[in-house]
């Protein structure tokens, strides 16, 4: 009798779990939680941009300071050819400084759509300065198993017609509030870019990926990996870092 009861109990627990999993996720809330996990008031990152164009691989070391979603300053540390190159983003403007020319160039308008340093990312992709939860409306599509874990698939539709990608699809971990994979689509529905978020590690009270792998899906054999070696949240950033006066030797 006790044995039958125990079996019933196990069955009930399993059933309850599967019902809980199948329960619809509040997609918009999940997106907000994901944003809250990723975004911080200030960030300091040391990382490497590994650009593989199918023929050769280049590795660019960089250091970045970010304030909110609208200000960021990066400087390239290696290789020698790129050392001293600086990028400053303030709102929707991006300045590029190269020590070879000792000039700063404003990259705006359509120039932002060009590939950044020959990578799979455009300057525009790098400059994305709105929280995804504010720019998109999320819809829960269901659960799938992705790399051994249950993930919620969310389809994001742009709230405004001027968003570069009108549709995105994300594979999100509904428990840890992190994105594992993202595909950005053309208006027609053709997949254009894929981003994989790898090796989440706890930093302070957040989970942050150690690597982001970007792929331009219209090209083959190319990928750009953004590897983060050091991530600090809530750091004090001198105000001159977000001033154009920083763009010099």
């Amino acid at each position, binding site marked *: 009798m006790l044995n039958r009861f125990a079996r019933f109990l196990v069955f009930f627990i399993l059933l309850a779990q599967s019902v809980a999993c199948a329960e619809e996720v509040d997609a918009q809330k999940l997106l907000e939680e994901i944003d809250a996990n990723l975004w911080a008031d200030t960030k300091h990152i040391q990382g490497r941009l590994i650009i593989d164009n199918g023929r050769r691989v280049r590795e660019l070391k960089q250091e970045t300071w970010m304030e909110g979603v609208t200000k960021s300053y990066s400087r390239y540390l290696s290789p020698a050819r790129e050392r001293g190159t600086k990028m400053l983003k303030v709102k929707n403007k991006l300045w590029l400084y190269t020590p070879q020319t000792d000039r700063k160039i404003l990259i705006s*308008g359509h120039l932002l759509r060009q590939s950044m340093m020959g990578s799979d990312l455009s300057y525009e992709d790098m400059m994305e300065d709105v929280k995804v939860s504010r720019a998109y409306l999320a819809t829960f599509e269901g659960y799938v198993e992705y790399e051994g874990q249950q993930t919620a698939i969310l389809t994001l539709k742009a709230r405004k017609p*001027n968003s*570069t990608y009108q549709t995105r699809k994300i594979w999100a971990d509904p428990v840890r509030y992190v994105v594992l994979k993202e595909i950005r689509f053309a208006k027609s529905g053709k997949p*254009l870019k894929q981003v994989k978020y790898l090796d989440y590690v706890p930093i302070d009270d957040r989970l942050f990926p150690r690597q982001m792998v970007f792929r331009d899906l*219209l090209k083959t054999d190319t990928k750009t990996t953004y590897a983060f070696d050091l991530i600090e949240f809530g750091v004090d950033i001198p105000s001159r870092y977000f001033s154009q006066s920083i763009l010099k030797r």
Partner: protein
Amino acid sequence: MILKVALRNFAGQGMRAFLNVSVTALIIIATIFSLSLLNGFQAQALKNLSTTDVGGGHYRVPGFDIMSPTDWEDLTQEVPRQLSQFKHNEKAEVLVQQGQLFINNRMFPVQLRGVEMGQQLLDLPMDHLLRRQQPVADSVPIIIGTQMSRKSKLKVGDQVVMKWRDKHGAVDALDAEVVDVVPLVNPRVDEGVAWLRLDHLRQITLRSKEITWVVVEGNRGKVEGLEFIDTDYLMRDLLALLANDRRNTRLIIGILLMLAAISVFNTQYLNIFKRQKEIGTLMAMGMTPNQIIRLFTVEGGLAAVGAVLMAVVLGIPFFAWFQISGFDVSHLSGTGIPVRENIFLEFNVREIATAVSIIVGLMILVAWWPVRRISNLEPTQALRGRGIT
């Protein structure tokens, strides 16, 4: 009397006179050939530009510059009613946008050029697009030129991904199907250009009724919101190139002409040196120095007249033969010069008459110049052969 004597003397010069006449005749033929070839080249290039792109001028959105592709998307507007009322043979609406084709892992930046299908003003082989009347669904039909086909290795039936931005800046992409590869005589509308139906390009970019420019037959006065760009401005780079070519041609002709003039000058100089006794005799018989100068100048002038006659005899059959085959300029197909077909001579009667007159005049001048010294000649010294040393 002088003409009669001059003719006899000229004939007596034999091979020397024949060579002078031949060289001058060849220079006349070369001059007419090079000027007419340049005329033919210019006419063909301008015609090709005009029939494929320029027409009689463009009404453009102010500030548009074909050399600044990053601005193309911002410089469009709805076609004004004043222009949309024109007949199909009076205007051609064109919309130009930036796009990218992804071919074999390579990204090809392209100019997406949408042209009104009903237009009859430009001579563009767009028959295959004309048949694709349905709105864009799964793929966008495009036409490319042979040069673009060669560079991109795209052929009829190929499907590649095409990416562009809509009016709001959202990125979009679809498969593009190459429905035809056409020979375009103007490389400016071939290399790096993907041709679409105007309605298709408007549909996929959400630019209903918008244009970048309207090709017209000629200036139709002020049009609200657009500025008229005339053909001189639209063809300015080609016109400058041709003007430069014309300068170079004239320089080469000048050098050839100088060589011929030196030859005649040399002949005349030797003539008066070797024929001093003859000059002295003529003076002793009562001819004035001016009459003798006239005699020698007419002799020299006869070489120029002979050259013109010889140029007619040799030139007419040569030009007639040349006009059958033309001049192959296929080696220029890789350049931006809008000529692909063989070019033919275009004779400008006024230009030829001017050139021949200058050559004849110069020959007479160089025939006269050395014999001026006769005016100071002492008949007694000349008879001894010591007048000119």
